[in-house]
């Protein structure tokens, strides 16, 4: 049952994404319809995740299928909220939804039937707080990526015409800086809560395991990009490239680690 609801949610997302791409090409603004599809998709997806959580007895963070499903969910939850509240970012739907399509396709490569195992060290409230901040971080960067996509596509004549109705690059750059600043706060909280969890779980708050190290490097990259933009008053295009590089780094760290380690943190599943 939960799987059918999940597929229905994905169909809603695909409809929202396709409509946003078509409207970008046709220069239409079916924003209300897109928002309706997004909200419906998020509601269905939330239901599917809740049902699976109830059935499996653990949250959506054990198997790769679950990690990707909850990753798509949190990106779209935050994106839908911002889409509703900040009109300037609505045009970004045509830019960010292809990223989500790729994630959906990737998720389908993993068997949803895989059970997974919840290690003892996951039995702590700090895990949920840590993961919550991580998801809030990447979702916020995701919105900045959409804004950066507009700034960069305006370098082309086609993009300039299509996005002519939006605020100027400087204003969009300021908006993306704000989202990155908020993302940095979430990411800092993610590192602090992760250290608290690690101290409880393994007796050390920091041990330079692959995920810790690369998450910290990503944090440094975020700090570096914000500082660079503030110090040198960089051009919107430079700021946009920095945002995209942070997102690529964060995405590889968050979703790439399972390819090099069977557990999200080194040593989690040792017997």
């Amino acid at each position, binding site marked *: 049952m939960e799987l059918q609801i999940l597929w229905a949610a994905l169909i809603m997302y695909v409809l929202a994404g396709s409509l946003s791409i078509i409207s970008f090409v046709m220069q239409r603004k079916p924003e209300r319809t897109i928002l309706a599809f997004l909200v419906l998709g998020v509601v269905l997806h939330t239901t599917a995740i809740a049902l699976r959580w109830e059935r499996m007895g653990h949250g959506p963070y054990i198997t790769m299928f679950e990690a990707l499903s909850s990753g798509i969910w949190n990106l779209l939850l935050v994106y839908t909220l911002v889409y509703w509240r900040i009109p300037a970012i609505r045009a970004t739907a045509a830019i960010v939804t292809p990223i989500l399509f790729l994630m959906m396709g990737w998720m389908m490569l993993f068997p949803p039937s895989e059970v997974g195992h919840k290690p003892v060290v996951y039995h702590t409230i700090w895990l949920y707080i840590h993961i919550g901040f991580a998801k809030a971080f990447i979702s916020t960067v995701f919105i900045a990526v959409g804004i950066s996509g507009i700034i960069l596509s305006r370098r082309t004549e086609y993009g300039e015409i299509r996005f002519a109705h939006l605020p100027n690059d400087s204003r969009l750059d300021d908006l993306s800086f704000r989202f990155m600043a908020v993302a940095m706060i979430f990411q800092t909280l993610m590192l602090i809560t992760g250290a608290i969890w690690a101290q409880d779980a393994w007796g050390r708050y920091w041990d330079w395991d692959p995920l810790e190290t690369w998450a*910290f490097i990503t944090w440094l990259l975020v700090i570096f990009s914000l500082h660079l933009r503030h110090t040198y008053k960089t051009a919107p295009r430079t700021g946009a490239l920095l945002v995209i590089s942070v997102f690529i780094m964060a995405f590889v760290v968050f979703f790439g680690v399972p390819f090099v380690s069977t557990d999200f943190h080194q040593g989690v599943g040792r017997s």
Partner: protein
Amino acid sequence: MPDIPPPGIPSPGIPPPGFPSPDISKPNTVVRVLRLLASLKLTLVLIIMLLIGILIIYYTRTRFVWALAIPFIGFAINLTATVLTNPVFRRQMALLVFHLALISIALLIAIDWLTYLKGQIELVEGETFSGQTLSEESGPLHRRKLNNLQLTNESFTINYIIADGQLRRADTSNQVEWVAPDGRSGRSIIGNQEPLLLGGYRFYTTNNKGFAPIFRWRLNGADTDKIGAVHLPSFPIQLLQQKNEWTPPGSTMPVWILLQIEEEIFFPDKPSNLRVPDKHTVVVRLNAPQGDNDQRWELKPGDSVRLPDGVLTYQELRKWMGYEVSYNFTLPWLLTASVLAVLSMGWHFWRKFAARPWNPNSGESKLGES
């Protein structure tokens, strides 16, 4: 329009006639140096240096302290100089608190490096720890107090389940008896995410645990026996490697100890726990000099064997637990400073962003449909 002061009242910053004018255009050397050290560009350089330091530590797998210490010292200087020279901190409390918290973090990390201790110990059930670690590293200013406390591993249980077709470790429960440096004593249950806090040290159970045959050894000519435990490799991860070399006290000839388990410890279809097998044999092998055959004995509890240097008696099989002991007294302060830094940073951004609307086109908040 600028405010013009009434006649007779000098403008702020302009000395009245007859007073020498301070040369505010040329700051003194100290201020110039401080301004150089407070440079935002220097901050960027330090971030890159920290990035390189992390990569060095990560890829060389060494505790190359200076790779991190140099950028952290640099940050402390850079931040302090910024706080001292930048007038914005006198107007923006949030920014000041943020920078002071960052300075505190850099100092606390430095103190932690100087005073930390990290060590490993292994204790057989019934054995008492009184200061001797298997391995240990500590900062140069650490005042070792491990000898002033006692920790006895009374017993432990570890549950196992089958998940995804594999044997997986579940809960660990370890009963320990302790005596603190101030003479207090008591019993605690530790394991999973519960450490024992004793005299500022934290003792954690680890994934490392296994079996240990207990031997009684009487050296030729000695009046008394000695009791010893041979810790076999971690179980069940090294299920097929349950052997170890051991030299009895006073002997010159090492022996090989091998544990043969003759029953199932873990069941493939139901939850199990780590327990000492009732059916088992301990094999003792003595490496013979070149040309001769090795000698080999199979022992059950209570069996003895005469070795060239004495008599070895196998008494019983017990379990041992590996512990990690650590000392980081800066931890609560580090957490406080980190939380303060992130809260003040959030406060600063909140005030900064609230001054201008998030929505660049405030007139277009309605959803368009065309």
